[in-house]
């Protein structure tokens, strides 16, 4: 293989070669560090909430003034919403998954315990909660109508029975079944019995880093939320969301105008809102990475193209001296392999250093050497592809070019 002549030719074009190697090194280092960030964002955004997201919408209702007959108003509202066309079921509550606000509590296994065994989000639901959210029951049962009590904001009541998520069940009782066990929400009050376990229900705080450790720890408490402002969570029949959203609002206003209704939103929109920043970041990073790769590849093609034009006479001479087309093609590909290879080597080192810095400052996972080397191999393939067209043109230079004037 004619490595030595290639090297000596490169020495005359060293600035161009170094520039290509630098581009490849930077591109590799940046893309390899950006991909895990994108991947982490995507993983977080894709986590299911555990509820029937595509058919649920939520709305906020606030009664004006200080209504004395709240209990009957809420009962009336619930009947109205549940009876609206296209509605499967509905609950009224203070919070729901991805809502951003809500209550959390520590759960204790014994009254004398100082620190809670697990943290949980608290959701207020009645017997309709199961059908409204479209939850999956793993064990036990859901609440019956006669178990439902009333809860006002800041009440310190503790329910006799609760339904919890599978993750919370495992956090509380790693080795035995949680079903039927007693836990304390307040160590000075009576314990609550776990009567059911559902597969999954995210807390209201997905997307907040402080709540990351208990994202799927949720507790359902059998209470009607008795307050002059509440959220309605409404599940509609597939395909009937838009109509139901309008119908529910119209019927609520027909019932009484002494209210403010806002935040009427399909759950899919809540999800988009929650993850707007990670989504934007991943899209922008992806675009930057893709364009950077494209610019680097085009740069390689452009510069090689130029070298081919510059060396037309030399190529002609080599062809006249007996080099085959294949040899010329190989010359440019080996040359590119040398340049891109040193770029990739520098890029691997640079990428690993960058990853160390990112891991320290952004708590990102450390990157495997194999991973970045694989990235390097892909960049090498791209670079070889980029050089193919100019190299083919070089191969087609006729031997007679050696004696023709430029």
């Amino acid at each position, binding site marked *: 293989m004619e490595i030595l002549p290639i090297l000596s030719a490169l020495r005359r074009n060293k*600035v*161009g070669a170094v*520039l*290509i190697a*630098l*581009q490849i090194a*930077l*591109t590799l280092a*940046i893309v390899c*560090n*950006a991909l895990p*960030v994108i991947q982490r*964002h995507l993983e977080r955004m894709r986590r299911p909430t555990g509820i029937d997201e595509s058919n649920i919408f939520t709305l906020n209702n*606030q009664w*004006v*003034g*200080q209504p004395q007959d709240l209990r009957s108003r809420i009962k009336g509202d619930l009947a109205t919403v549940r009876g609206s066309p296209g509605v499967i079921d509905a609950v009224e509550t203070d919070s729901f998954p991805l809502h*951003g*606000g809500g209550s959390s509590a520590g759960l204790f296994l014994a009254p004398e315990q*100082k*620190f*809670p065994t697990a943290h949980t989000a608290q959701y207020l639901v009645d017997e309709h909660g199961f059908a409204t959210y479209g939850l999956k029951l793993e064990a036990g049962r859901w609440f019956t109508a006669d178990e439902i009590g009333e809860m006002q904001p*800041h*009440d*310190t009541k503790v329910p006799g029975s609760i339904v919890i998520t599978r993750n919370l069940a495992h956090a509380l009782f790693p080795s035995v079944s949680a079903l039927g066990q007693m836990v304390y929400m*307040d160590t*000075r009050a009576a314990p609550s019995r776990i009567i059911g376990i559902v597969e999954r229900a995210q807390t209201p705080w997905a997307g907040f880093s402080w709540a990351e450790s208990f994202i799927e720890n949720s507790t359902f408490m059998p209470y009607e939320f008795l307050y002059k402002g509440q959220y309605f969570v409404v599940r509609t029949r597939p395909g009937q969301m838009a109509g139901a959203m309008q119908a529910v609002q119209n019927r609520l206003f027909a019932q009484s*105008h002494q*209210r*403010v209704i*806002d935040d009427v939103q399909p759950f899919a929109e809540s999800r*988009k*809102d929650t993850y*707007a*920043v*990670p*989504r*934007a*970041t*991943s*899209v*922008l*990073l992806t*675009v*930057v*990475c893709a*364009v*950077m790769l494209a*610019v*680097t590849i*085009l*740069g390689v093609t*452009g*510069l090689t*193209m*130029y*070298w081919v034009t*510059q060396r037309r006479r030399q190529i002609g001479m080599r062809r006249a001296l007996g080099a085959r087309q294949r040899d010329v093609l190989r010359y440019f590909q080996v040359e590119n392999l040398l340049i891109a290879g040193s770029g990739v080597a520098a890029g691997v080192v640079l990428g690993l250093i960058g990853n160390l810095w*990112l891991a320290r400052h*952004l708590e990102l996972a450390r990157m495997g050497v194999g991973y970045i080397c694989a990235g390097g191999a892909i960049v090498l393939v791209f670079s070889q592809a980029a050089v193919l067209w100019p190299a083919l043109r070089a191969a087609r230079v006729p031997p007679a070019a050696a004696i023709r004037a430029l």
Partner: protein
Amino acid sequence: MLGYYLQLALRSLRRNRPLTALMIAAIGVGVGASVTLYTALEAMSADPIPAKSSQLFNVQVDNWGKDQESGELAREQIAYPDAAALLRAKPALHQSPMYPLAFNIRPTTGDIKQFSAPARAVTADFFGMFLAPFASGGPWLRADDQRHANVVVLGASLAARLYPAGNAVGNVITLKDRVYHIVGVLKPWRLEPRVYDLTFRVFLQTEDIYLPFSAAIANQLWTAGGNWCNRPFPPTWDGRLASECRWLQYWVELPTASAVADYHGFLVSYAQEQRRLGRFHWSPDVGLPDARQVLRAANMTPPGMRVSVIAAFGFLLVCLFNATGLMLARLSGRFTEFSVRRALGASRREIFGQCLADATLVGVAGGVLSVAVTLLGLAFERHLLRDDYARLIVVDVNEVIEALILAVVAMLGAAIYPAWDASRHPPAWKLKAE
């Protein structure tokens, strides 16, 4: 001479179209992407009140103690007993305890649908401390704080909605069945992030209604914001006020370093006194970060955003190397021309100048492209971000100028070596070789 250079440059641009187009594209896209992402990062991590941020201090008093697992939770908030005691102890200071509220407002005209307006309970000092701009009227008096007066200052949008004629000051507004006199109306006021309360929706605008803290407490208006408790929350109003729940932000203005040291000393002695009184069972743990430190600790910038900006500037560097390489290629294609010019008497400096003129032209073209990329990129970013964050990203002439200048400077930087390389060749040397 410059005109001649530009003429030559134009001609050469036309001669080597693919390479030139590639250079313009690289500079345009590289600069555009960096300016786009940097603008977003800057918007999210900006100091919203640079004139005051080193003089405004957030008062933190640990009222839970170290044995609490969640002792660090909501440190920027304090409990009512502490807020009341601090306010009493130093009446001369510019300071404000505060908390968020929300009211349903009945419009005075037109539509009967009520709407909800964010509000905040503050002291008279608040407006001067945070540089709230008044359109008419002014803040209430300190005496109004003393006597729990039912007065309010309205934000610009609510005042315009309720009193379109601009006569809000002197009129009244009904909040939770109580009548408040309007003493002032603010101009549109942006404070993003809303540094004095970073607990929720921090990029949402400032409030529509401000009322005296003392009146809000006297009227038993409970917070619409966060409330962090280490024990179950008492059901009665008096119980809530006396509880150790953290739900108030407390800010003081301390203009000098000695004032800061004094106040810090005062906080420590206050905490010691609470220990003596048996309320705290731990050595004093107080904090007095300024607004900048509070913002930094809250870490408003999403972590992915920072990585994106680093990536974008790396990308710009790649584009610069790219442009340098392509410039090198383009110029070395013109060595014959330079040799002839040198042989005809052009100095090395003149060749160098000619090459830079050429690069400037490419830079301007790249700059125009980068402005287009920036505008598109920012529009795309706003579309992706929605709501709070999106409102931060404002496209103004600054970004356009930044992009243009950056593109030209970058291209000139990229062209220096190739230009020097081109001017190095001796006259007619190339001619001989042909």
